[in-house]
């Protein structure tokens, strides 16, 4: 691996920067994502930092079934994120559309019908432990690929 790649991988592993995007969610997953930041789960001890712009983010965390209007913005954000980038589909909605699959305002089939997904975290809503587990698995897969 080139040095720059090693550096990028190291910084991703040590401190993944996350951009949270709500693509039409009921807020159930969103409050559990925010909950992961609070003392009981404290996701920041893994170096996970919430950022405000796609250009600084390593990981795009998407909650909600993707409404058609959000789909276009989601694609733009995905394209603006620098490589290497990862996408986490949060909750049943992200994985498959959840209860909203079949509603006219929503893209059928969930998040991977709009952007490529690296990690799927099921649940309705996800539990904070599942989010942490998903991030850890993602980091482990990056480490494995880097070897």
């Amino acid at each position, binding site marked *: 691996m080139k040095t720059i790649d090693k550096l990028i991988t190291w910084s991703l592993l040590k401190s993944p920067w996350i951009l949270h995007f709500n693509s039409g969610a009921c807020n159930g997953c969103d409050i559990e994502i925010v909950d992961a930041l609070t003392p009981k789960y404290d996701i920041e001890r893994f170096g996970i930092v919430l950022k405000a*712009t796609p250009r600084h983010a390593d990981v795009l965390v998407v909650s909600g079934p993707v409404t058609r209007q959000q789909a276009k913005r989601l694609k733009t*954000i995905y394209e603006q994120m620098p490589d290497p980038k990862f996408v986490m589909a949060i909750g049943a909605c992200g994985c498959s559309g959840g209860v909203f699959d079949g509603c006219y305002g929503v893209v059928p089939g969930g998040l991977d019908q709009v952007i490529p997904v690296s990690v799927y975290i099921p649940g309705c809503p996800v539990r904070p432990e599942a989010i942490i587990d998903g991030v850890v698995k993602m980091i482990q897969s990056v480490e494995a690929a880097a070897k």
Partner: protein
Amino acid sequence: MSKITIPLGPQHPALKEPENFMLVLEGEQISGATVNLGYNHRGMEKAAESRTYLQTMYLLERVCGICSHSHTTTYITNVEELAKAEIPQRALAIRTLIAELERVHSHLLWLGVAGYEMGFETLFMYTWRDREQVLDCLELLSGNRVHYSMNTIGGVRRDISIEQKAEVSRRIKFLEERTRYYIKIGTEEPTVAARTANVGMLPPAVALERGAVGPTARASGIARDVRKDEPYLIYDQLDFKLITHNTNDVFGRLVVRVLELVESYKMIHQILNNLPEGPIAVKVPMKIAPGEAVNRYEAPRGEDIHYLKSNGTDKPERVKVRAPTLANLQSVAYMLEGGWLADVPLVIAAIDPCMSCTDRASVWDPKKGKMALYGWEEMRKLGIEHYKKRGVNFSGL
């Protein structure tokens, strides 16, 4: 004059978006605000028409993740009214218990968000840590922390054991203790008062005219609460106060919510101590005879109203949901006008909106002829800085 909207949606400032609120600035004050809506539209009412009554319940639960029990209960009450089903008292009591636990979690969540918007991050961490107690109660009783799906058509899905009652009781007692601290902070801490007093003014006449509901209306002295006005579930058997305040501002909305927590704790104890014996559900036929029903419920944010029309099949003919935030959004434009840009996030947060946390505002300054886009984080920080300059600083707390 151009208008400015606070959009629901993605982060990136350069993206053009349909936005929710439009603000016009004069210096640092807002001279005009309008509300535009319609971002999270998924098409649930249409989908409900091709799902069975039970499937529709699970769908409607997800109108909102914070007050999901409100929606399923209002909906199921409609279904049961049309089915002419007599719901057992024990089931109604358990529904009420979940309803009040939901109010507690929602108000604590709100308190944390309000604290966060002010820059009072310690309050955010404390309240959300304490809120875990309620989530544990809900998980204990229903199997899930959020979207408890306690209801089924005809009653509730799960019963409550003596051990569970004791566990819930213990946790609520802990929360009562913590809430005394929050009341103290909310009402006596000068930095909180400085950020909330006289901010987001909504006089009673305007609150009435604009159809405000819930704590937003009650903070303007409007004694409106479906639990008292049209008691549903077992509220007519419970002893609790209707909390109002008369300062018409964000401070009032804070006071109403913390005092409502106290009333909710009272009710939870009453329910746990007087849970009637009996079954937890009755059988209701899959096909519901034709009819129409309207039911209302006092969700944490205010009046939730549902209309249901049945047609003799196992699927609804028409489902209509009007969640409380839609009613309160009409008042926000009024609250923002004449106020400071720095207060925008807090004023909006004070109606406890069921919106994503990723909102942004675009701000038009006619004098400078510039349109600026502010991320929600930026607006929040701007507010905190604005007040720091005036000596209101939460960093010591």
